[in-house]
């Protein structure tokens, strides 16, 4: 494999970074950089901007609105977005539901829902986990009983990220108790404005509200909202999860976090000397940097192999299976490692907790340097990334089974 960019790829890189410079609102980028909370409008705005340029859904087939980019181009695009402090695109519709619809949905469903994802008409959220079904997702209990042209839903979903903003939710539901637990699961799309749907916030340990419980009481869902076949939802669910895992790996975000770490370590002092020059801390930073660079190359290597092997996969390219488990584990470990170093670098100034400083528009004083406020919060919040989207333990189970044959 060749790691250096071709002239075409370099030109593409320039095109992306130029466009970002002109189209990403600096105030929005600043919020991202400073770890401030993004409003719903912020996220929707960036979604629209990308869609306006046709760059919202690089991983979709071209016929549905994808870009037709090579895996390497997509990689370049993601890295440039991260470097520019672009907000992360909300993935639930674009990167989770859409691939399932494209692969398993009916033509009618594709026609109805994919354009609405692109133009932002719908804000999707994910109804997978339940209180008793986390790692053991297949043990989910939420019932969907067929009554004429409708399913009647009763049960609870949890850990629903940004569910407070969503009008649509895709759910795994139990349509049968026959056979193995995996065999009676179906994949349903649910309008959250239907009577009987209730969203309740869950506060995370550092006090932020980003996940929710969603309760369903006699919720009526039209049967045309079933994706694929009844009781085959587990297959679609697993397909979706590979996308989610790759997403969570977040190498680009770690690259940005590493740059922030370096800036903090240059600014913070230890007994009069920059922390970056402390031998133990310098070694910790270098270890993280090397690990991140290794992971980046390993990911490229996987993409490159996938691209070689996926010649006629109609532009969808680089669909990776069990490798995504490896990406997810390593990517989240590195991100958490960098977050921990940022926290450590702050010394005593990691302690002040100033939630007002995370709010949009806050420009008041903070205790300590201006980069300090979000750091400890991010550290605690990002403990989630090795848990959500299939915990790293589940990923290791997958690797053992699928790749190692153990």
């Amino acid at each position, binding site marked *: 494999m060749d790691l250096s960019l071709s002239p075409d790829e370099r030109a593409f890189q320039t095109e992306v970074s130029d466009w970002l410079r002109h189209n990403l609102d600096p105030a929005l980028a600043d919020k991202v950089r400073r770890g401030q909370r993004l409003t719903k409008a912020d996220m929707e705005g960036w979604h629209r901007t990308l869609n306006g340029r046709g760059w919202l859904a690089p991983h979709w087939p071209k016929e549905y609105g994808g870009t037709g980019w090579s895996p390497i181009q997509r990689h370049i695009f993601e890295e440039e977005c991260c470097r520019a402090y672009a907000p992360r695109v909300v993935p639930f519709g674009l990167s989770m539901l859409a691939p399932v619809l494209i692969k398993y949905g009916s033509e009618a469903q594709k026609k109805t829902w994919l354009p609405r994802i692109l133009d932002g008409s719908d804000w999707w959220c994910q109804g997978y986990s339940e209180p008793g079904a986390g790692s053991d997702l297949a*043990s989910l209990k939420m019932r969907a009983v067929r009554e004429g042209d409708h399913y009647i839903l009763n049960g609870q979903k949890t850990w629903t990220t940004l569910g407070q903003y969503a009008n649509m939710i895709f759910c795994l539901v139990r349509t049968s108790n026959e056979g193995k637990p995996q065999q009676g699961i179906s994949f349903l799309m649910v309008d959250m404005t239907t009577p009987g749907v209730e969203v309740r916030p869950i506060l995370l340990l550092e006090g932020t509200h980003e996940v929710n419980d969603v309760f369903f009481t006699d919720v009526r869902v039209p049967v045309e909202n079933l994706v694929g076949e009844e009781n085959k939802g587990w297959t679609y669910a697993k397909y979706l999860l590979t996308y989610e895992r790759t997403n969570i790996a977040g190498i680009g975000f770690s690259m940005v976090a590493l740059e922030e770490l370096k800036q903090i370590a240059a600014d913070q002092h230890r007994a*009069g000397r920059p922390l970056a020059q*402390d031998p133990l*801390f310098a070694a910790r930073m270098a270890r993280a940097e090397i690990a991140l660079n290794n992971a980046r190359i390993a990911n490229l290597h996987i993409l490159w192999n996938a691209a070689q092997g996926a010649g006629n996969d109609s532009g969808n390219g680089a669909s990776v299976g069990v490798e995504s488990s490896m990406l997810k584990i390593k990517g989240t470990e590195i991100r958490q490692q960098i977050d921990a170093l940022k926290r450590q670098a*702050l010394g005593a*100034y990691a302690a*002040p907790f100033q939630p007002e400083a995370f709010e949009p528009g806050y420009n008041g004083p903070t*205790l300590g340097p201006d980069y300090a406020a979000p750091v400890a919060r991010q550290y*605690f919040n990002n403990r989630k990334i090795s848990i959500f989207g299939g915990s790293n333990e589940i990923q*290791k189970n997958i690797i053992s089974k699928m790749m190692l044959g153990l």
Partner: protein
Amino acid sequence: MLADTLTRFVAQDYPLDARLAAGAGVPGYAPEKWRALADLGVHGALFDPRDGGYGGAGFDLMVVFEAVGRGLIVEPLLASAVLAGGALAQAADPKTKSGQKEHLAGLVSGEKQATLAHFEANDGWDPTHIETTARKTDGGWVLNGKKSVVRAAESADFLICSARSSGVPGDKDGLSLFLLEMDGPKDGVTLQSSQTIDGGRVSDITLGDVTLPETALIGRAGQAWAPLQSVLGRGVMCLSAEAVGLMDVIRDMTLEYLRTRKQFGQPIGRFQALQHRMATLVLEIEQARAAVINAAAALSGDTTDGIATARALSAAKYTVAEVGTLVAEEAVQMHGGMGMTWEYPLGHYVKRLIMIGHEMGDGDYHLSRYIRLGEAT
């Protein structure tokens, strides 16, 4: 025994919700619980009999602060009794300045609350790297500088504040301690304050031409290093013991979760991968406890070997930083999503355990100090 009393008090009279609410509010703790703790004798146990207490040895600190950790107690015992009180007890000259003795008595009884304003933004945990200056004038002293992230300063009746009356940052000689009354707004003293992520409040304290009378000086000018070093060592001891107390709670919660949470048709504690990781945690917590016992023994023993004591303290703080991070992160991971929520208690213990690494030196600092002190011998 005091530890049992304290644990019972927390369980019966000071539920977690109340402790969290107190820690998130102003002044960052519950004054009525502060008084209740004093009535139980907790403050007194942290002072030597010659200072009006009935404890104060290394093992006394260990026992009390393990209970503080287990109880996630947000009241500023460390700041007020151990640090400010310790500084007064060790630095003040009782013969000449009887007023300071009364201040000390107020801290021993818990009627007063004080704090030690010592660390600064650029010191990097090095307690000799003090840039705040104290200039001698005719009638007293003028202080200039900035103290960082001082715990429980807003609510303090007075501050014990370190400043440099001679020398340069890094010198041991030339450090002096001053008593600042905080009975009202004070010319030149500005507090910028915030709650903390682990409960309680902190302040950056700016000192701009703060004039103090001669009587504000504690002990002799320029001679504060010895008492400061001792007091900070005791602080490190307390934080290390608190960390072990927190780990004990986190371990028990995690064990309970592993026994009861079911996935794939069985308690998750039946999964060998988690069993082995849990065994490692239990093992490492005992290593951390051993480090704290060692430090307590060093503090309690004859203090002829100051370097050995200092090394034992740094070894303990380093160990609880390493083990504490492992325990905190593994406990959250093994709890899964549940461990990430505000509602479930685990996260609050975890936050405090992690943030102990941000008080009085992180693991790297104490490891480096341990090495440096070893080279000196």
